[in-house]
């Protein structure tokens, strides 16, 4: 769809950038042939190393910089033909160092653009109250000055200042780069929330991969002014375009991302099964040798048709019936290409000890056991603990490793127990 629309000269697209190039005086090419189509409501993250041209690209959108060549269109209108001042009033702008006016109250700061647009005072005051509620700050703050707020609170104001005049596009230039990790996380949640509620389009520049992956609907990875990969976070994790992208994502994240993108088929183990036309004696023999109490039943083409447990087998043993006659055909299964992340809850909640996995033709290809799921949950949590470790300095890692692993383990166990209880209740 994007392809078709892009041929229609960017119509239907909120923002379209074509062959954008920026050469700074002195011959340094900051942005080289940048192309991007952005639909309304998208959350685009530009990510790359320093000097990759991500900020330059973003600043060309509100004409804080002029491109050397190429066009940027908003709603099909070339911004080079627009009055830059009017253009900027329609685009929200959040910068890393907040840039609140220190001599104005928070109220005046929030309603700065509405004031430039000559909204009446009552409407501005109303908007200021609305906005400050959005970021969960008390209304008394409206009469304070920026220096009386903490860094995180200031950036909250910075964010709503960019939204106060109903701007359609919000540009954010590493807005949370200067904040501590906890504040940063709460602001990321806030921004994601605001974006989803308001349906506005965000262009977000960052060099923090976690931030990009958790916030964006699409990520634009840039290096030396060129786009390296433009895709959804899931696809980037699954198929990094090249080594640069893989390095940028980091091996940790690629491993950690596994549970979220691994399919059931990839983790399924070999199933113990019997055919419908086998006798009960054969089935019991199979159970005995493989040390299991339940057999999955397939027909002659290998399609899953049901299962049979030891109780039922015992009940009918010696009646001369075939497995097909006594099996329970009400079997719960998952398809091999469903993603673990989506499946794990369902599996655990049903309280099954194992779940058969079938392919597109309905053929049995394996099972996922509760043990498999425990492994995955454990990996995810352990991976998390590992990662927070590696953020510390290298020297302390060795000593801190063990307690953290322990913590990760207990946590993962707790999680599993919890889920089982849930399943039992249902």
């Amino acid at each position: 769809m994007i392809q078709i629309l892009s041929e229609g000269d960017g119509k239907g697209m909120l923002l379209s950038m074509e062959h954008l190039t920026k050469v700074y005086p002195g011959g340094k090419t900051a942005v080289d042939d940048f192309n991007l189509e952005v639909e309304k409501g998208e959350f685009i993250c530009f990510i790359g190393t320093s000097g990759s041209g991500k900020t330059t690209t973003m600043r060309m959108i509100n004409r804080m910089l002029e491109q050397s060549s190429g066009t940027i269109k908003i709603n099909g209108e070339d911004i080079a033909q627009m009055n830059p001042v009017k253009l900027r009033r329609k685009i929200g702008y959040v910068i890393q160092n907040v840039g609140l006016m220190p001599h104005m109250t928070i109220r005046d700061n929030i309603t700065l653009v509405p004031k430039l647009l000559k909204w009446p005072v009552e409407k501005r005051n109303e908007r200021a109250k609305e906005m400050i509620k959005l970021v969960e700050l008390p209304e008394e703050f409206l009469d304070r000055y920026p220096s009386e707020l903490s860094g995180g609170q200031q950036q909250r104001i910075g964010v709503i200042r960019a939204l106060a005049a109903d701007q359609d596009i919000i540009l954010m230039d590493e807005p949370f780069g200067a904040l501590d990790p906890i504040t940063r996380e709460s602001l990321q949640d806030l921004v994601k929330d605001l974006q989803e509620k308001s349906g506005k389009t965000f262009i977000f520049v960052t060099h923090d991969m976690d931030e990009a992956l958790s916030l964006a609907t699409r990520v634009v990875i840039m290096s030396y002014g060129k786009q390296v990969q433009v895709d959804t976070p899931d696809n980037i994790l699954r198929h990094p375009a090249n080594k640069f992208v893989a390095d940028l994502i980091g091996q940790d994240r690629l491993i950690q991302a596994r549970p979220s993108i691994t399919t059931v088929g990839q983790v399924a183990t070999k199933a113990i099964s019997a055919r419908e036309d086998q006798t009960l004696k054969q089935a019991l023999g199979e159970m005995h040798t493989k040390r299991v109490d339940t057999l999955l039943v397939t027909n002659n083409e290998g399609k899953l048709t049901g299962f049979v447990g030891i109780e039922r087998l015992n009940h009918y043993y010696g009646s001369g019936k075939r497995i097909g006659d006594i099996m329970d055909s009400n079997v719960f299964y998952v398809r091999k290409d469903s993603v673990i992340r989506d499946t794990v809850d369902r599996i655990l909640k049903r309280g099954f000890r194992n779940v058969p996995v079938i392919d597109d033709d309905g053929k049995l290809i394996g099972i996922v056991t509760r043990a498999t799921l425990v492994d995955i949950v454990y990996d995810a949590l352990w991976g998390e603990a590992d990662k927070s470790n590696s953020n510390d300095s290298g020297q302390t890692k060795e000593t801190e490793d063990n307690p953290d692993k322990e913590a990760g383990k207990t946590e993962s166990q707790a999680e599993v127990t919890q889920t089982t209880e849930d399943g039992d209740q249902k």
Partner: protein
Amino acid sequence: MQNMNIFQQLFYYFAHNGMYVLSQFDRHFLISIYGVVFAAIVGIPIGIFIAKHRKLSGWVIGIANVIQTVPSLAMLSLIMLALGLGVNTVIVTVFLYALLPIIKNTYTGMLNVNADVLDAGKGMGMTRVQILRLIEIPLSLSVIMAGIRNALVLAIGITAIGSFVGAGGLGDIIIRGTNATNGGAIILAGALPTALMAIISDSVLGFFERKFDPTNKTSQ
């Protein structure tokens, strides 16, 4: 008279010539203020202009510096050649001396406005005039004020010399004291109010300087 000490003489002088001292005080202050106000009217725009055109700043501040190095008595005499005796000569001299601190401080104040705030202002869609009016001037006002404060204290000193060219002011009283035998009390009668004026102007403008400082802004 001879049996009074210098402070008694001073008191006596004030008691008998109080209104005269007051009128000279008034005149002195107005001459200084006029010179500084004209300098501010000219100097602040120049300061803003050279802050926007940094290449010119070296030249402009250089010229103002040269003016500053001319001894004030020489400057008064030079200007007297053109404007003759009288109060206008002193006002022009004060104006010239007040230019440097005002231009320099305006320039510094403008350059010290936080680049992030300017970036945010421009990015939100302020015109150049709005950036100047809503951001740059309010944020550099305290530094500009400090320049005016310097200029005014300087001006009060220069005006005292201005009585050589017949402008009047407290300088008249001082000169009368120097011409009289045992005129110490009369000198003091002119010098003390001059010093007082300088101190009061300095502290009043200092108060405004702090008041305009954006970093001191709080809701209390």
